[in-house]
C-alpha cells in the first residue's frame, strides 16, 4: 500500500513483516563489536519510516517497535547483549537465575532480584508479572498466542474480565517468587518469557494502549516523550540495575523522528543531520552509500527466510514431483535482483543464526542446484510435463508491499516458463495473510516469508507443522503435513533446552523438509546499519540477533 505514503511504506512494511532478526551471515564481516571504546554520554537523532506499531510492550509486535522497547523494558529472562550466536543465549534478566523447570516441563519457577526499581523509582514486585500477562491477554495483543499455554489463560480471555485471576501464575511479593504452570511442556517458553510482551510493567498500569504515555519499565532507557507519528524520545534510566551480560547504555538521549520519506532519511544521515536510519537506505541511494560511505555502512543477513508456499491439498501441488520441479525451476539469483541485492540466495528453510540451520544444504549441497546459479529450467519443464500438468492454470498469490508484488509477478513468469499458465494475483498487504490462510481460498501457491520471533527452531517450524493446520488464520499456508516432521517437531519441542544434540535433530528435520520439497525457499533477507559520521561505527554498533540494532551499544566518537 502504497498506498500512499504508500510508496514511502515500501521499506516500512518490509520491517513490519519482520519480527525479530538475527545476525550472523557467513559472508559478512563483523565490523562492529559491542561495548568498549568511544565516549560516554551525548545525544543522538534517528529516523524511522513509520511509527512503531505500539509504544506499549504488551502490544508491540514489530521490529521497529521492539528495537526501542527492548532497551526500555526487561523481562524475567533476557538475551545476552552480544553479536552473533552469543546474542541468542538466554540469561537471567529481572530474575536471579534461569527458571527451574519441573513436573515434566510444565512448571517454571523464578525468583525476582532484590531491590529492583522501575524508571520512575517505584519498586518492582513479583505480582507485577501476572499483571503484565493480564494486559497482554486482555488487550487482545498480537502476542496473546504465546501465553495461551498458561493454565487458565484461555478462560481468562473468554471471560473478558481484566481483573480476573490467571490460575497458572502465582506470585509471592514478600519472597519475590513467581510460579508459572503450563498446560503442557513447551520448549519455547523461556524464549517467550524473554519477549517484550512479558517484560515487567508496574501493577497499576491501566488496561489500555499506553502508546501516548508508555509505562515505566526496567531498561537502559526510559521513554520521556511519545507523540505518535511525530517522534519519541529515549533517555538514560538512572535506576537501571546491574545485570551481568546486560550492560547499561552509553548515550544519554536518543530522539527518534518519524520521517516517511526514506530518501530524505538517507540524505540526512549522509549529511549528518540524522545519526541513524532504521530502514536500509532505499534502493535508489544504496549504490551511492555503498560506494562512498562504506566506513559507516554494513549489511547483515538476518534470521529470516523467503519462500513460496505450495498448497499440498490443491492440484497441481499435491504431486511431490511438481513441487520438486518448482524448486528446480525458480530463478533464485534473479529473485535476489528484485530485492536489489538485499537477499542472500539459499535453500535452507531454517535461516542462518537459528539453531538447526544447515549451512551445507543452504548453498553447497542444495538438492536443487546452486542457489547462486541460474536454475535448471529444462529439468523443471520435463518434470512438469511428465507429471501431466503442463498448461495447467495456476494463480500465484502475493501482496502489494514492495517488492512482494514484483516477486509475485516474477514467480508467475517463472512458472509459466516451466510450462504452467500462471497469473499473479496481488492483494493488499493487510488482507493478504488472512486470505491465503483461509482454506476456502484454495490458494495454490504464493509469496511467504518469516522473520524469527526468537531463536528457537519451533518458531519457524510451526509454519510447516501438520499440527498447526487450521481452517482459518492458517499459517501453514501449504498445509504441509509430513508425519515424520510433525512428530519430530512435537517431540523436540518438549526439550527444555537446545543442546547441540537437540540442535542436530532440528537440523535433520530441516534437511528432510527441504529435500522433500514441501516448500520452495529462495533466500534470506539482509538488513543494514547506516550511521552518521559522529557515531562510533567501529566500536559501538552492535547488531543483536534478536533485537536488531542495539541502541544500548551506541556511542559517539
Amino acid at each position: 500500500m502504497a498506498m500512499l505514503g504508500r510508496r514511502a511504506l515500501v521499506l516500512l512494511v518490509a520491517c513490519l513483516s519482520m519480527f525479530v532478526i538475527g545476525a550472523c551471515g557467513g559472508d559478512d564481516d563483523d565490523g562492529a563489536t559491542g561495548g568498549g571504546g568511544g565516549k560516554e554520554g551525548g545525544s543522538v537523532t534517528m529516523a524511522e519510516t513509520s511509527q512503531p506499531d505500539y509504544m506499549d510492550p504488551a502490544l508491540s509486535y514489530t521490529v521497529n517497535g521492539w528495537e526501542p522497547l527492548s532497551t526500555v523494558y526487561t523481562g524475567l529472562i533476557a538475551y545476552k547483549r552480544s553479536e552473533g550466536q552469543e546474542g541468542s543465549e538466554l540469561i537471567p534478566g529481572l530474575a536471579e537465575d534461569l527458571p527451574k523447570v519441573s513436573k515434566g516441563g510444565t512448571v517454571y519457577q523464578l525468583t525476582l532480584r532484590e531491590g529492583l526499581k522501575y524508571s520512575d523509582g517505584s519498586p518492582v514486585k513479583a505480582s507485577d508479572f501476572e499483571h503484565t500477562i493480564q494486559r497482554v491477554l486482555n488487550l487482545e495483543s498480537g502476542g496473546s498466542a504465546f501465553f495461551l499455554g498458561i493454565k487458565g489463560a484461555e478462560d481468562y480471555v473468554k471471560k473478558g474480565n481484566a481483573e480476573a485471576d490467571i490460575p497458572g501464575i502465582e506470585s509471592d511479593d514478600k519472597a519475590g517468587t513467581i510460579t508459572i504452570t503450563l498446560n503442557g511442556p513447551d520448549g519455547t517458553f523461556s524464549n517467550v518469557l524473554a519477549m517484550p510482551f512479558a517484560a515487567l510493567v508496574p501493577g497499576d498500569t491501566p488496561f489500555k494502549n499506553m502508546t501516548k504515555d508508555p509505562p515505566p519499565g526496567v531498561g537502559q532507557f526510559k521513554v520521556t516523550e511519545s507523540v505518535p507519528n511525530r517522534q519519541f524520545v529515549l533517555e538514560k534510566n538512572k535506576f537501571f540495575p546491574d545485570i551481568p551480560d546486560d550492560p547499561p547504555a552509553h548515550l544519554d538521549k536518543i530522539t527518534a523522528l518519524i520521517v516517511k520519506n526514506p530518501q530524505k532519511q538517507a540524505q540526512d544521515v549522509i549529511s549528518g543531520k540524522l545519526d541513524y536510519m532504521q530502514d536500509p537506505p532505499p534502493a535508489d541511494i544504496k549504490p551511492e552509500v555503498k560506494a562512498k560511505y562504506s566506513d559507516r555502512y554494513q549489511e547483515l543477513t538476518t534470521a529470516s527466510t523467503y519462500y513460496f508456499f505450495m498448497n499440498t491439498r490443491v492440484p497441481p501441488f499435491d504431486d511431490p514431483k511438481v513441487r520438486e520441479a518448482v524448486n528446480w525451476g525458480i530463478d533464485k539469483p534473479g529473485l535476489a535482483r528484485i530485492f536489489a541485492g538485499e537477499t542472500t540466495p539459499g535453500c535452507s528453510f531454517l535461516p542462518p543464526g537459528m539453531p538447526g540451520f544447515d549451512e551445507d544444504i543452504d548453498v553447497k549441497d542444495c538438492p536443487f542446484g546452486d542457489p547462486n546459479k541460474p536454475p535448471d529450467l529444462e529439468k523443471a519443464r520435463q518434470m512438469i510435463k511428465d507429471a501431466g500438468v503442463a498448461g495447467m492454470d495456476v494463480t500465484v498469490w502475493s501482496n502489494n508491499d514492495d517488492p512482494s508484488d514484483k516477486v509475485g509477478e516474477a514467480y508467475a513468469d517463472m512458472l509459466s516458463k516451466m510450462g504452467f499458465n500462471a497469473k499473479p494475483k496481488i492483494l493488499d498487504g493487510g488482507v493478504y495473510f488472512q486470505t491465503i490462510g483461509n482454506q476456502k481460498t484454495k490458494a495454490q501457491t504464493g509469496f511467504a516469508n518469516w522473520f524469527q520471533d526468537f531463536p528457537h527452531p519451533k518458531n519457524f517450524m510451526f509454519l510447516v507443522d501438520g499440527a498447526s493446520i487450521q481452517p482459518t488464520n492458517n499459517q501453514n499456508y501449504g498445509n504441509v503435513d509430513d508425519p515424520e516432521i510433525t512428530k519430530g517437531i512435537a517431540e523436540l519441542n518438549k526439550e527444555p533446552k537446545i543442546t547441540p544434540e537437540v540442535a542436530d535433530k532440528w537440523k535433520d528435520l530441516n534437511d528432510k523438509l527441504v529435500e522433500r520439497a514441501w516448500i520452495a525457499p529462495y533466500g534470506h533477507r539482509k538488513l543494514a546499519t547506516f550511521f552518521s559520521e559522529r557515531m562510533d561505527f567501529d566500536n559501538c554498533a552492535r547488531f543483536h540477533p534478536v533485537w536488531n540494532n542495539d541502541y544500548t551499544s551506541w556511542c559517539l566518537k
Partner: protein
Amino acid sequence: MGRFIVRRVLQMGFVMFAVSLLTFFIFNVIPNGDPAVRMAGRQPTETQIEAIRKEWGFNDNIFVQYFTMMKKVFTGDLVSYFTQLPVGDEIVKGLPRTLSLAIGAALLWMFVAICFGLYSAMRAGKFADRFLTIIALIGISMPVFWIGALMNYYLGYKAGLFPNGGYVEFSKDPIDWAYHLILPWTALAILFIGFYSRVLRSNVLDTINEDYVRTARAKGLTERQIMVRHVLRNSLIPIVTLWGLDFGAVVGGGAILTETVFDLQGVGQYAADAVGQLDVPPVLATTLFAAFFIVLLNAVVDIVYAYLDPRIRLQ
C-alpha cells in the same frame, strides 16, 4: 435570503449524511477482509478474534455499527482499527498542512492564471496567445504526481535548490515553511493555471465585445480603465465561482496526490494511507472532512451568488 440560506444548510446536512452512509456501505458490503483478523496480528487465535469482535462491536448488525461509528465521529472518540490512534488527533494535526498547501496553491494559481489569461486575451490571435494556450494545455495534461515526483527529485534532491519533501510548521519558521511548500504549490497549481487562464481568456474576450464596453470606450475611458473596471471585474465573477468549487475539491481530495509525493503528512496523505489498508474509521472521517469542505464551499458560492442576484435576495 434567510430562507435560502437555511435551505442550503439543510441541503448540506443531507449530503453529508448521504456521503457517510455511502462510505460505510462500500466498506461493509463489499468483501474486503475481516478487520478483526487483521487487528489480531500475525498469529491470530479464535479466542482473540472473538474478543476483538465483541469489543469493537463487529458482531452487531450493520445499522448499530453505523450509528456507533457516527456517534464516535461527533464525540471525537473515533479510533483507527490498525494503529489504535484517535483519528481526530491525526486530522487536527494534518489540517494546517493541507490548508497551507491548498490555500497557497489556490492563491498562486489564481494570480498566475489571471496574468496569463489577461495577457493572452489582449494579444488574442497572435503568437503570444497561441504559445500561452499550448503551455496552458500542457499544464492541464500532466498528472500532478508525476510532475511533482520529477520536480521533487531533480530540483529537490539532485539540484538541491529546494528541500526534498517534508513540511515545516509555520509557527516554527515561516520562511522555511514557505520554502518547503514552493514545489508542492507549483505542482498543484500547474494543473489549475492551465484551466483557469483559458477560462479567463475566453471570458475576457466575450466581455470585450459587449455593448457596455463599447460605450465606455466611446465615453473616452482609457483602455486600462476599461480593462480593470469593466472587463476584468465581469470576467472574474464566473472564475471566482469555479475557484470556490475547485478549492473545495482540492482540500477534499486533489491534495492527496501532492501530499503523498512531497510527504507533507496532511489529511490527504493520511486518507490515502488509510484507504489503502481499508482502515474504515480514518477513511470515514477523512471522507466526511473532504465532503464537508466541498459542500461548504459549494454552499458559500451559491449563497454569495444568491446575494448578488436581487431576485433571490429580495424574497
